[in-house]
């Protein structure tokens, strides 16, 4: 296995095989992968990173396929990272996004990589950010990350994107669902897809009115209505994305800050898990079961013990 610096050179020269292998290292938490990244990272920063989120079935992949074609027609090299959920039950993943990226597959110069979420809450940003850097090192100027958009994962995607597109469909009418899902909190551009469905126009108007009334107070993101399946409205979306890109106002400082904090928290959390011995945890479980201690004071005490006992941190190296 070559040295990290040599691997980084190969990627910068356009070696896709090496790039793909290093992305796998990052996914697996292999330290060599991160060493490669340390050589690559200083050379990144010029690519434009688009995040696409929304409920399953909203049409994210189809939209991304159309976007890839549009950007390729503009002469840009495109990279796509599609994140799919890992089955908690079996640990396996079925990646189906490539099926809908048919046109993107046919264009030269599009690198598509599927990544499993692996149930790692908050941690997917770590692997996806690394993959973005590698795709940029390969020469991709537009990097699109597609993420499963329920619960907390949209927040991750804003950490690693210059612009986030949140995709809805006209049948997303239940207001409580919208509020619960938190999907409205993150998008810089909101898309209503599947405008080819019957009644779509009326429902889209209802949705827009809802947003105007109950949406975020600070500002109202532009809404683009389109039909990815029919290829209608895509130029509008590209226009909005380009507006954002040329605007330059992407909040990079804030995102870098949050990314660093998120990575630090993740490292600490991994460390803590490796420090707690199994019999220690079992005795804690017993104390809580027998109501001798409550879980809150017990965990606070464990944290002070772990932090004070410096030698524990060293022993586990």
């Amino acid at each position, binding site marked *: 296995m070559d040295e990290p610096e040599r691997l980084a050179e190969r990627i910068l020269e356009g070696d896709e095989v090496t790039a793909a292998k290093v992305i796998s290292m990052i996914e697996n938490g292999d330290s060599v992968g991160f060493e490669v990244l340390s050589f690559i990272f200083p050379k990144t920063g010029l690519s434009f990173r688009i995040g696409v989120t929304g409920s399953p079935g909203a049409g994210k992949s189809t939209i991304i396929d159309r976007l890839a074609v549009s950007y390729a027609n503009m002469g840009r090299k495109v990279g796509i990272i599609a994140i799919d959920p890992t089955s908690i039950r079996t640990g396996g993943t079925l*990646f189906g996004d490539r099926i809908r990226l048919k046109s993107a597959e046919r264009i030269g110069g599009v690198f598509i990589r599927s990544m499993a979420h692996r149930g790692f809450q908050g941690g997917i940003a770590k692997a996806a950010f690394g993959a973005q850097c590698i795709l940029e090192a390969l020469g991709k100027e537009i990097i699109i990350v597609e993420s499963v958009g329920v619960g907390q994962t949209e927040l991750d995607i804003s950490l690693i994107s210059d612009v986030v597109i949140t995709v809805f469909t006209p049948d997303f009418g239940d207001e409580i669902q919208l509020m619960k899902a938190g999907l409205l909190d993150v998008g810089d551009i909101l898309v209503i897809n599947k405008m080819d469905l019957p009644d779509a126009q009326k429902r889209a108007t209802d949705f827009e009115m809802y947003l105007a009334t109950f949406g975020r107070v600070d500002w109202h993101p532009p809404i683009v209505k389109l039909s990815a399946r029919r290829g209608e409205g895509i130029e509008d979306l590209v226009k909005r994305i380009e507006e954002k890109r040329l605007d330059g106002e992407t909040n990079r400082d804030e995102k870098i800050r949050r990314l660093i904090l998120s990575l630090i928290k993740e490292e600490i959390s991994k460390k803590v898990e490796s420090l707690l011995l199994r019999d220690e945890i079992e005795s804690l479980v017993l104390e809580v079961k027998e109501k001798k201690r409550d879980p809150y004071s017990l965990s606070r005490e464990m944290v002070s013990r772990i932090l004070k006992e410096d030698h524990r941190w060293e022993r586990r190296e």
Partner: protein
Amino acid sequence: MGEKRMKILIAKPGLDGHDRGAKVIALALKEAGMEVVYSGLHKTIDQIVNMAIQEDVDAIGLSIMSGAHIPLTRKLIEKLKERGITDKKIFVGGVIPSRDIPVLEEMGVHGVFPGGTPIEEVIRRIKEILGN
């Protein structure tokens, strides 16, 4: 993040339009804990090789119901060699007469699964071959 995983591409090359078998296998392998990329229909061998490279899969499984398994497999193996890819295992499944099994194995295929092979056996053998 952290555990090593087995990743496989289930691909449908050529004009063959029957994808039920491929989808059943893809789902079964996922249930068995693997990461499975499904290619979709009508992919060229070049596209399949590109997918295998980009996804850094450990194995490529061709699902072929059209009878064209020998020329398609040969082409896949040639293209992989051309691109310098030597570390991916190759499996072929579908409508495959038993007399063709040794021919495919001779070419370098690591496992042949004619239609009717029980799914548990397919999974077991794939995991065995990838585990080594």
